[in-house]
């Protein structure tokens, strides 16, 4: 089973890598925004259920996990790297947090913090190996994907961990003033990530490293530190997503999160992040994630089976990037 999953991901991965390597930008922030609005308009004409508060609450809640992962991987991709271990980080975090989140054991902050620590450590380990060994991130994080999956199975002895405390389950299922907590977490994470990228020196260095690593080095930037920061940050955000997921399904699942990294990478790319590094925005990624959510929601409402949904989604990823490359070349 594991082997099969691995193969499937690998195949998809190659498509993602090869298709997007040639043509490096997504639709770009504005193009993707227009496309997003058009698709929303279209869906609201076709089905009245689409443009309702309750439906949008569902969409955004569902999108929140992918969006968190996509924010993390956006940092990484802007530096010119990639992180394929996100889905496994989600599983490890979930299992670790769940094992400490049974009722009447620790206060809820303990599983949350320990879970995040687990994800941060995995991200940092990715960073250490990538910067010290000079092995391409693609390979290092591919290895970490398998290691992480194994760890999650070891830690949980291959069984789902259930019976979690109400406090813990509140994270993914609760509401504050009528707003689901995942949406609040999503908004906070978005604001913080945007600020890091646009307003801090770290953000500037992330763009510089991906834009021209040699120039960054010659400017006195400690490139390895920037890369470390980026993979660690990405691991931390994946951990947060893992905790959200575990809390929402009220179980720590060692098999959770398979293939999540690809959806996250897709969101970033649709949102205009270039896989060759140097460009990308959090707003673009957020819209990319929302677009994926809206389309799968729309197809659900139209009773399209999930098999077809995958085909549509793949076509959209390619379409977004092709459109953008036309855009780019017409500007030249």
């Amino acid at each position: 089973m594991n082997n099969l999953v691995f193969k499937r991901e690998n195949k998809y991965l190659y498509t993602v890598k090869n298709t997007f390597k040639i043509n490096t930008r997504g639709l770009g922030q504005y193009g993707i925004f227009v496309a997003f609005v058009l698709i929303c308009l279209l869906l609201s004409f076709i089905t009245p259920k689409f443009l309702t508060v309750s439906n949008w609450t569902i969409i955004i809640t569902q999108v929140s996990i992918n969006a968190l992962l996509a924010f993390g991987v956006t940092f990484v991709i802007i530096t010119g790297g990639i992180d394929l271990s996100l889905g496994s980080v989600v599983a490890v975090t979930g299992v670790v947090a769940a094992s400490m989140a049974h009722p009447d054991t620790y206060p809820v902050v303990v599983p949350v913090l320990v879970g995040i620590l687990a994800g941060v450590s995995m991200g940092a380990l990715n960073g250490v190996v990538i910067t010290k060994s000079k092995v391409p991130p693609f390979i290092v994080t591919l290895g970490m994907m398998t290691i992480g999956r194994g760890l999650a199975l070891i830690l949980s002895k291959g069984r789902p961990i259930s019976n979690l405390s109400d406090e813990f389950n509140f994270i993914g299922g609760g509401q504050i003033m009528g707003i689901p907590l995942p949406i609040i977490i999503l908004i906070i994470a978005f604001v913080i990530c945007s600020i890091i990228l646009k307003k801090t020196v770290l953000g500037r260095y992330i763009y510089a490293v991906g834009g021209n690593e040699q120039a960054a080095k010659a400017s006195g930037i400690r490139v390895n530190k920037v890369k470390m920061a980026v993979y660690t940050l990405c691991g931390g955000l994946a951990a947060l997503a893992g905790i959200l997921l575990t809390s929402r399904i009220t179980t720590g699942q060692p098999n959770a999160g398979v293939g999540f990294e690809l959806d996250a990478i897709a969101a970033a790319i649709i949102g205009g992040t270039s896989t060759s590094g140097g460009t990308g925005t959090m707003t673009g990624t957020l819209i990319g994630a929302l677009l994926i959510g809206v389309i799968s929601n729309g197809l659900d409402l139209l009773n399209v089976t999930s098999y077809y949904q995958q085909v549509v989604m793949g076509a959209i990823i390619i379409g977004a990037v092709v459109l953008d490359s036309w855009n780019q070349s017409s500007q030249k």
Partner: protein
Amino acid sequence: MTLNPDYILQVSNLTKSFSGIKALEGVQLNVRRGEVHAIMGENGAGKSTFMKILMGLLQADAGQVFFEGEELRHSSVHEALKRGISMIHQEILMVPELTVAQNIFLGRENTPWLKDHVREQEAAELLTQLGMKLNPRTKMKYLSVAEMQMVEIAKAISNNAKVIIMDEPTSAISDKEVDALFKIIRDLKAQGVAILYISHKMNEIYEITDTITVLRDGKYIGTKSTKDIDNKHLIAMMVGREIESLFPLALASKGEVLLEVKNLSSKGKFEDISFEVKAGEVLGLAGLMGAGRTEIARAIFGLDAFDGGEVWLKGEKVTIKSPQEAIKAGIGYVSEDRKGLGFIPGLSVKQNITLSSLRRHSKRGLLQSKSEEEIANRTISELKIKASSMEQKVRYLSGGNQQKVVIGKVLQASPEVVILDEPTRGIDIGAKSEIYKLIRDLTARGMAVVMISSELPEILGMSDRILVLSQGKQTALLNKEEASQETIMRYAMHE
């Protein structure tokens, strides 16, 4: 070694090897405060390696560097910049997606929060000082190569450095900007800043430097006061022999007209360009940056479309829409952007030479290594490419040899017209003379050569006729006898 307080930088016995090959061996250097000190030598002499060690981009295997009396053991650029050493890199090192101001201050944001507004103000002042009209908010990728180089210069001098290394700072800028740079160098000198100046342009060396240190094959050859050494002796120190004449005589007989361009125009780039080139002839294209020389070459070669005019080859009108068609028709083009468009650094000399003619070395899609090796060997010996073997990666060759590989590749298609765009940019004098010989060789074989160059001595020394352009218009077509630096410049500046 004895420390002398007069010197801001003292280097002794510096040694560095790359995979067993010595790039530097026992190099020494003494630099005074407020001195412009030229580091000279052919390509492969070790100048860039030397400078990269001073800058912390590479680590030396042995030797000592004293900066302001303290031994420098920095292992990072970060440290070098902090101590007060900065560098203008030969290969322009800039982040294309960031703005001019962001690039100038990159790596020196001393707070965790960005202060772009303040920095933009400072960048604007700096650029004005350099005589540049440039919006600090423009993204780097929209600048011309000359503008990028000016930003690189602005970046290096904005660091308040005590020693500034300038590795070919003028390779892509026009005379006006060179004047602005030299004025700044003189100001910096007056403030006690020492400059290490690398350039292959002799006139610059004599104009701006005080002292010259020469390296050859990674070894220290000597240090002289600039006013005490003439051109001939300096070149002899660099190449280890005296070069009688840089430009070989044109002996090829002129044949039929091979390329004729009639009223070629491309909106916004150039208009109404007409010339012809005969077999065995070199036509020089002269003009300032942005005069449209490269654009004309690109249009002829099918890289860009043009709006009007005709291209004739051997008396027949041709329509060329792509480089493939141009190559088929017998045109070869060697781009000015050697690194970007000329060769693939990770492939070997052999692989690069045969890259565009692989079909000839394959049967049913399978490569025939024998025929490939034969051609590669012949090209290497014909063009005198210096490489450890045909399997050496082009990345590790000197600039002059890289250029020969590119020319070798272009020659595989047996072109009759060869367009060379800045064929000796960034190449040292010894290798330059070899490229010149090579160009004479091509004409002797009956090819027509169009040579674009920003170096007037090169244009004058090599061309049979010279087409001068100014702002996209053709202002003169001079015979060799009537051309001089002054006449060419006059026509190049013609409004």
